[in-house]
């Protein structure tokens, strides 16, 4: 994406001009307008991701609370769960974390160790893909989930839009895990991240956000405990 409009606007209305777009925009309520050359403030409250480097790059400073968030990755195991662990650990007592059609078993001992409340975890394994979509939409629309994690292979635009609307209406973040190849498909999701593993680190390419494209990918050290405390983990890192 390129943003030629920025320079065009700046030339037409110098920032000092009283009648410039800056002055007009200043009169509008904050949050209702965002300029494409800046990172947007999210209208809804954002939830900190737990990773400062990522929060800096996300509009609103965290995961948007009512949006469809696409996470694109080649295969499970890139570090996608570790990325969400801080968020999942803060689940309120009466809300679910819905897992719709995960490709592998989310391993309870590891989740427990990471501080995810297992009693709030709802594992939904539909037989058919259309049921998975239905379940994800229901979970998102019910407003009783603190987050919905859904794994889907093929989705058309209408289905994505329905998910996005359900997420918006109920202010529930819906994390949709899709294959990397889906990155080429247009999507109504306001935030799309491509994840790739890099050893103990996770590489995040922000494909789409409300704001300019980032200059470089975000590198997160997600397996912190692995490095911090290898003895207590029962493992010693081989030199």
């Amino acid at each position: 994406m390129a943003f030629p409009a920025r320079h065009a606007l700046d030339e037409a209305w110098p920032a000092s001009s009283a009648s410039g777009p800056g002055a007009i925009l200043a009169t509008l309520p904050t949050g209702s307008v965002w300029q494409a050359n800046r990172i947007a403030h999210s209208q809804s409250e954002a939830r900190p991701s737990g990773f400062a480097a990522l929060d800096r790059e996300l509009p609103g400073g965290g995961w948007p609370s009512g949006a469809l968030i696409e996470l694109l990755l080649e295969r499970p195991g890139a570090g996608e769960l570790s990325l969400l662990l801080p968020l999942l650990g803060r689940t309120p007592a009466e809300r679910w974390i819905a897992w719709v059609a995960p490709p592998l078993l989310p391993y309870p001992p590891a989740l427990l160790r990471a501080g995810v409340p297992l009693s709030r975890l709802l594992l939904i394994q539909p037989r058919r893909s259309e049921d998975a979509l239905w379940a994800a939409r229901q979970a998102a629309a019910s407003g009783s989930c603190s987050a919905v994690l859904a794994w889907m292979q093929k989705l058309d635009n209408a289905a994505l839009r329905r998910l996005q609307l359900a997420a918006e209406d109920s202010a529930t973040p819906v994390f949709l895990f899709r294959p990397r190849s889906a990155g080429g498909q247009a999507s109504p999701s306001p935030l799309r991240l491509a994840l790739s593993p890099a050893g103990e680190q996770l590489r995040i390419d922000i494909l789409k956000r409300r704001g300019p494209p980032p200059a470089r990918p975000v590198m997160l050290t997600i397996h912190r405990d692995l490095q911090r405390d290898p003895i207590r983990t029962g493992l010693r890192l081989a030199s």
Partner: protein
Amino acid sequence: MLWLAILLPALPLQVFTRGARADTAIAVTASRAQTCILAASPFATAAGVRPGQRSASALALLPELQLHARAPEREARALHEIASWAGRFTPRLSLSPPDAVLLEIGSCLRLFGNAPLIEAEVQAGLRELGFEAHTACAPTALAARWFARANGRSPTAADWLDALEHLPLDVLGDEDGCDATTLALLAGLGLRTLAELHRLPAAGLARRGAQAAVHCLARARGETPDPRPWFEVDESFDCGLALPAPTHHAEALLFAARRLFASLGGWLRARHAAIDHCRLLLEHEYQPATALELVLGSPSQDESRLLLIARERLGTLQLAADVSGLRLLAEHTLAAATSSTDLFDDSGRVREQADLLLDRLRARLGRDRVSQLRALPDHRPEAAWAGLPHPPAGRTGARAVVAKGTLPAWHLPATDRLRPLWLLPTPRSVDPDAFVLLSEAERIECGWWDEQPVCRDYYLARDTRQALCWIYQCLDKPQAWYLHGYFG
């Protein structure tokens, strides 16, 4: 007690006209063999079609007239449907075949305000269902029925007995009260109103074979009890209507479907239930019916939401043949979400929603498809977890005790050890050369007590695409390496 009678004098005709617009010419004949016109729609009446006419003459007057033979079973179903719908007003109602439903509204006056308000609401609701009815209120069921039959006006509470006396004698023939010979006998005596009948000595009338008339009058006046069987609202909803002529126009279908959805709304309110899906069957004459599944995002009592979905579906539907009738089916009701408003805290509502979500997921996907996970105290990775259907069946079982944390600490799951977030359901055989080992081995050697011993060395490893994996070497077979999880 206060009874409201819903009387449908034109029911034989209305079972055919309710799905059609007002400008449709429809007439009903007494039966297939008898071709006399029994009743005709207003449009046909305006063209000169009269009850009692031969069908040939009616057709000569109005060639587009649609003739239907009277369908008693349809009328019975329609009456049943009206009773189900009327359950939204009062739980105490009674069928009074062939053409009336009686509602005991004395117990719900305060809820609705007063009897005239209920009457007006019933009338408006029935028009939505596609029926025109006479209604009247009276302290006894039979009197209410008679008032509805005679003029459709309710008497005032003070002088209802006087008003009853002024009713013509014909009302006695209602609801298998008196047979034709009794009525003829009374007419022969020169009686015209109930007042005249009431003045005659009962014993003398009984001797002359008019016992039934005396009994009826006593019941109507409330002098002898008149027990009525209460109508039970059905567990599932199944109502249909015939279209006057086969059609494939979405608007025409929707017009008819609106009647059924109005009926569904009444049924739901009667049962204090909500539904999240229902099925609309489009019946064809010579083909199996086309079924439309209408699914709502959240359970609702509001039939207009379903109607909206039906409109969209009908608009895009490709029909194989013209539709001759509609049928609406609904079952699996859910408890209607009654919202208690809390000023500050919405956690109660969230909890309700959470339960509701679980119900709906289980109802559609099956109980075994929605589960919860639990960690178990076992060193073998594949035995250290369990999936439990929700809610956990054995609350008193050992697992529940573990969850409560009442067992000693050494019994708790080994959460201090590094475990992968993703576990493969079955370990996958891999080539160890493709991995870089990042840690020393963690030996897991146990399980001798339940015939599933394991003896493995687990390693943290990095695969060729830089993902962190959990792999193990099987110590029984040193060449065998397996991938067991991803650190995700």
